[in-house]
């Protein structure tokens, strides 16, 4: 699918100067190529890319000219983390979280290599990163639901009955975007509805209320690395693991529990990207099928998690979570034992590469 250059150029001309150019990294996992970046060029070229190359490290991934980037393949990951590299998945896009760890920026935007620029109903090209930045830089409102959705959006506000003491909101840690065309369905749904396409443009951003879990998709996601980065571990997936396609889900349940505990916000809705290619549903089914059973136990686990008051940093919350995963989910399958250990390894690796962040408390940035 080729987006006509004029729509994007028009959108770029209309948007403000590139925000957060020096404070944001774009993390892209890939095993094939980065051709999709051509379409994103006008929106993304000013930003630094972190490419995490999955699969065969001897293959060369060509990055389109003009992009400023650093690229890590499996050899680099092994070299940089040593034995701790065991927590980073192989042959699964979950490896992208290595990019979060090595970044030195405050914000991360991550996108899949089969996601293209979408158009809004007026035909205008959507600058997804710009919307993510808006979402992250404006407060969230997790304690009381606003029926007009994001009260900080242009042309909206808090409705009658919304307490004034809650109108300042809290810091936004995560911005979860959506997808037009191929929706993010699981394998069974894909098999039953192979032709379904998401054509509904829902013009809203909303805060996911405190105490409510959601399925977080990693295809079109941005977050404040300083507020929540250490909790964005995408788990053990892919080669040698009994499960796949639950990496972002796992991270999503962890970050939501921690954000709820620390008083941080998670938004979902705009921006949309255009998801062009559906993965093979039969392959997906084999990857997911254990997850489909396990999530029936995992969800109640996360819904009931209580983090102690003295967990005042993301790392402390995460280590505590790992402990509870081992205690309560370990009995479902030895996989969760391994995962709990990997969660701890991840934090050690994170702190090793990001020494100053260990002292941030209560989600406030230094």
């Amino acid at each position, binding site marked *: 699918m080729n987006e006509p250059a004029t729509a994007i150029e028009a959108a770029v001309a209309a948007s403000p100067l590139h925000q957060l150019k020096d404070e944001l990294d774009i993390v892209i996992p890939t095993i094939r190529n980065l051709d999709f970046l051509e379409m994103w060029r006008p929106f993304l070229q000013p930003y630094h890319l972190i490419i995490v190359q999955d699969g065969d490290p001897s293959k060369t991934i060509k990055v389109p000219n003009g992009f400023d980037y650093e690229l890590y393949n499996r050899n680099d990951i092994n070299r940089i983390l040593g034995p701790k590299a065991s927590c980073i998945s192989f042959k699964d896009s979950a490896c992208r979280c290595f990019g979060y760890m090595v970044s030195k920026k405050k914000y991360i935007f991550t996108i899949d290599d089969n996601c293209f620029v979408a158009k809004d*109903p007026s035909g205008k090209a959507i600058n997804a990163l710009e919307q993510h930045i808006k979402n992250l830089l404006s407060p969230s409102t997790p304690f*009381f*639901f*606003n*029926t*007009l*959705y994001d009260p900080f*959006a242009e*042309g*909206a*506000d*808090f*409705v*009658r*009955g*919304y*307490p*004034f*003491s*809650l109108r300042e909101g809290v810091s936004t840690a995560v911005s*979860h975007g*959506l997808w037009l065309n191929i*929706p*993010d*369905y*699981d394998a069974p*749904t894909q098999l039953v*509805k192979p032709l*379904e*396409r*998401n*054509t*509904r*443009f*829902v*013009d*809203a951003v909303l805060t*996911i*209320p*405190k*105490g*409510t*879990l*959601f*399925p*977080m*998709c990693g295809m079109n996601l941005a977050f404040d690395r300083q507020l929540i980065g250490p909790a964005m571990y995408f788990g053990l997936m892919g080669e040698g693991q009994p499960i796949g*396609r*639950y990496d*972002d*889900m796992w991270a*999503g349940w962890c970050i939501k529990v921690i954000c709820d505990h620390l008083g941080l916000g998670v938004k*979902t809705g705009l921006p949309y990207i255009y998801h062009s290619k559906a993965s093979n549903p039969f392959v997906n089914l084999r990857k*997911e099928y254990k997850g*489909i059973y396990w*999530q*029936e136990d995992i*969800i109640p686990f996360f819904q009931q998690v209580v983090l102690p008051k003295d967990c005042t940093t993301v790392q402390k919350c995460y280590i505590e979570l790992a402990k509870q995963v081992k205690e309560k989910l370990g009995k479902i399958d030895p996989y969760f034992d391994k995962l709990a250990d990997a969660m701890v390894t991840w934090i050690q690796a994170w702190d090793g590469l990001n020494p100053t962040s260990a002292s941030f408390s209560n989600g406030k940035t230094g």
Partner: protein
Amino acid sequence: MSLSIKDDEIDIVIGALRPDLTSFMNEWRTIFSRFHLIIVKDPDLKEELKIPEGFNLDVYKKPDIDRVVGTSTSTIFSGYSCRYFGYLVSRKKYIISVDDDCYPAKDNKGILVDAVAQHITNLTTPATPFFFNTLYDPFTEGADFVRGYPFSLRSGVQCALSCGLWLNLADYDAPTQALKPEERNSRYVDAVLTVPARTLMPISGINIAFNREVIGPALLPSLRLGGEGKFRWETMEDIWSGMCVKVVCDHLGLGVKTGMPYVWRNDRGDAIASLRKEWEGVKLMEEVVPFFQSVRLSREATTTEDCVAEVANVVKEQLGSKDPMFARAAKAMVDWVKLWKSVGSSTSSPGA
């Protein structure tokens, strides 16, 4: 409109706060005319109602209200609360209620929104309060549950309440509208979503629908501001009622949806003039919200009436001493349950 729902299962209840309903009824004619309507005239309204021909309706005025509930009780139905009388006397399964200053809206394609059909769709498809679906209503055409949504939660629960929205004059409070006098809502958000369990929200009475058989007694006239007036900026009765309803729904495992349908709300009134009256309501919410967030109902409360009675009790105990308005509200809730049991048609079957 769902084929399994018959038109005669629906009542449209309109509270008339203004006498001339001609343009209101004519604007809604194509949507309302197949249904039975209950029009309740604000007992404080002196002028005669003007209603155009061609509708199947029952009109209730002060004398009718007095006759059914007695003259001392009829005062609870003053102002916007007059509609609750309609809920009380209705014998239908579904009720849809819009304010008399709202017209049908047009969607993004310029097509007139059939608010009744959308509310009925919302009420007759399951709600999903236990886990958030990022593609919003999974039962809508062209959507489904996303990857990662537990299969055991995909059958959902019964939807008891459908909260619609408003284009043009949004339901802002007076301070907000006074600060932004020109602001009008032009954003048509093409979504319906379930409000998660234990999440509270301001439920506006301007455009609302519910399953009367399941949740009827929980929509109630009880909190009346000292300076309550005839503009929405001067009331909190629906917000209070809505908090009760949500707590009861959460306890009984029922769903509440929000989003479409939109109605077009006409400009009316002066926010600045209403400012003084509504400050009272605005301040109240600071107490009301934390209170309702902390309410936990007992296992023994298995019917809507029981739940309402328990909430009333907790209101009396925890809020009654803070402001006489709350003590009065608690009493009004208890009286309402009694009234519902004697006048309203039986809804004592469990809500879930």
